[in-house]
C-alpha cells in the first residue's frame, strides 16, 4: 500500500472526559477534491473486544477514503478499549454511549453537514442508540452507516461467551469453573480471551437491540446497511432483511447491500474488503438531506 501524503494523515489526540480519564481519538479532516465543498461528518463506533483489533485496518482505510472524498471523520476508542483510559472491566454500555455522545459533540464543533453515525458489528448497536439520544435532545436527525451490524446484543454476547468454551477445547483454562453466563448472572466479572467482562457491560450489551429510535422524528434519516459475503452472488442475510423492514416501517430511508469480501472482523489478518470501501463511498454520495 502506498503511503498517504502527510497532509492526509489523521490527527491523534486525547478527548478529556471529566472524571473519567481520556479517550484516544483519530480525527481525519476533510480533504475534498479541489473546488468542491466538504460533504459532511462521520463518527465511527468500533466493534466489541477482539473485533476492535481485527478491524483496525479496514476502519482506517475507510476513514481515509471518506476524508479524501470530503468527509470529516472521527474515530474514538471507547472506555477501556485501545489506547483509552481504563480497563475493559471498567467499561459499561452506558459509559460507551456517553463516550460516543462526547465524541459526537467534539465533531459537531469542528465540522458541519449531514451527520453519519458509522457502526461496525456491536458498534452498530451503539450508533442506533446514539441516534435515538440525539433525536431526544432535539439535534438534527442523523444518518446511520452500518457495517455487518449485530442485530441483537444478546446474540453478540453469546458468541463472545462461546470463546470461553473454545479456549477450553484448546486446553487453556480450567474446565471445572462455573460457566461464564452463570458467573455474570451472579454479578461477577468473567475473564474470556484476555478480556475481563463485567456483569454491567454484559447486561447492557445483552439488552441492546438494533431497532429504530423510539423518539418521534419529523424527518427520519437514511440507513445504509452493508454486509459482506464470500458467495458468488452476495446477498443480504435474512436477519438483515427482517431488521431493515422495521426501520423502513419507522420512516427511515433504508438501503441494504451485500458486497463481496471476507469476514475481516473475525480474525486478525482477516483480509481486506476494497468493495466495501467503494460501496460505502457510493452509498453516502447519493443525495443526503442535510
Amino acid at each position, binding site marked *: 500500500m502506498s503511503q498517504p501524503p502527510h497532509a492526509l494523515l489523521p490527527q491523534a489526540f486525547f478527548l478529556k472526559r471529566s472524571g473519567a480519564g481520556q479517550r484516544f481519538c483519530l480525527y481525519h479532516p476533510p480533504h475534498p477534491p479541489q473546488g468542491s465543498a466538504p460533504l459532511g461528518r462521520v463518527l465511527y463506533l468500533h466493534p466489541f473486544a477482539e473485533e476492535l483489533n481485527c478491524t483496525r485496518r479496514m476502519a482506517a482505510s475507510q476513514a481515509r477514503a471518506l476524508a479524501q472524498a470530503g468527509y470529516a471523520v472521527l474515530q474514538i476508542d471507547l472506555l477501556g478499549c485501545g489506547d483509552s483510559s481504563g480497563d475493559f472491566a471498567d467499561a459499561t454500555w452506558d459509559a460507551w454511549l456517553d463516550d460516543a455522545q462526547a465524541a459526537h459533540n467534539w465533531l459537531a464543533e469542528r465540522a458541519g453537514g449531514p451527520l453519519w453515525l458509522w457502526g461496525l458489528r456491536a458498534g452498530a448497536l451503539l450508533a442506533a442508540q446514539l441516534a435515538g439520544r440525539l433525536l431526544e435532545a432535539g439535534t438534527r436527525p442523523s444518518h446511520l452507516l452500518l457495517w455487518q451490524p449485530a442485530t441483537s446484543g444478546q446474540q453478540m454476547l453469546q458468541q463472545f461467551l462461546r470463546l470461553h468454551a473454545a479456549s477450553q477445547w484448546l486446553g487453556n483454562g480450567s474446565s471445572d469453573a462455573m460457566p461464564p453466563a452463570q458467573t455474570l448472572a451472579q454479578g461477577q466479572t468473567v475473564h474470556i480471551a484476555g478480556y475481563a467482562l463485567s456483569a454491567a457491560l454484559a447486561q447492557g450489551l445483552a439488552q441492546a437491540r438494533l431497532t429504530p429510535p423510539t423518539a418521534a422524528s419529523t424527518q427520519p434519516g437514511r440507513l445504509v446497511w452493508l454486509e459482506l459475503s464470500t458467495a458468488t452472488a452476495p446477498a443480504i442475510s435474512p436477519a438483515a432483511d427482517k431488521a431493515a423492514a422495521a426501520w423502513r416501517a419507522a420512516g427511515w430511508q433504508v438501503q441494504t447491500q451485500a458486497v463481496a469480501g471476507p*469476514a475481516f472482523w473475525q480474525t486478525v489478518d482477516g483480509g481486506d474488503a476494497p468493495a466495501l470501501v467503494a460501496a460505502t463511498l457510493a452509498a453516502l454520495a447519493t443525495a443526503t438531506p442535510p
Partner: protein
Amino acid sequence: MNLTEQVLRVLDEALALHGRTAAFDRDTALLGALPELDSMAVLALITGLENHFGIAFSDEDLSGSVFATVGSLCDLVEQVLAQQDT
C-alpha cells in the same frame, strides 16, 4: 463439491489459509496442530460453517473433539445436516 471439499473451503476462508487446505484430507489434524486455529478462529470457523450450510450448532454439539481432525468436523456437519432434514 462434496461435503469435505466444502468444509475445507470454509476452513480456508475462516482461517485465511490462502489455499493451504488443498493439501488437507480427512485425517489432517486441526486443533493443536494448526497454529492459526486459536479460539477466535474456532468461532470464525463455527460461524462460517453455520452460514455456508445454513445450519445452527447447539452448544451441546460442540466440543474439543469435534475440531480434532478434518474428518471429525465433517462428521458433525453431516450429522447436523441430517438432523435438519428429518
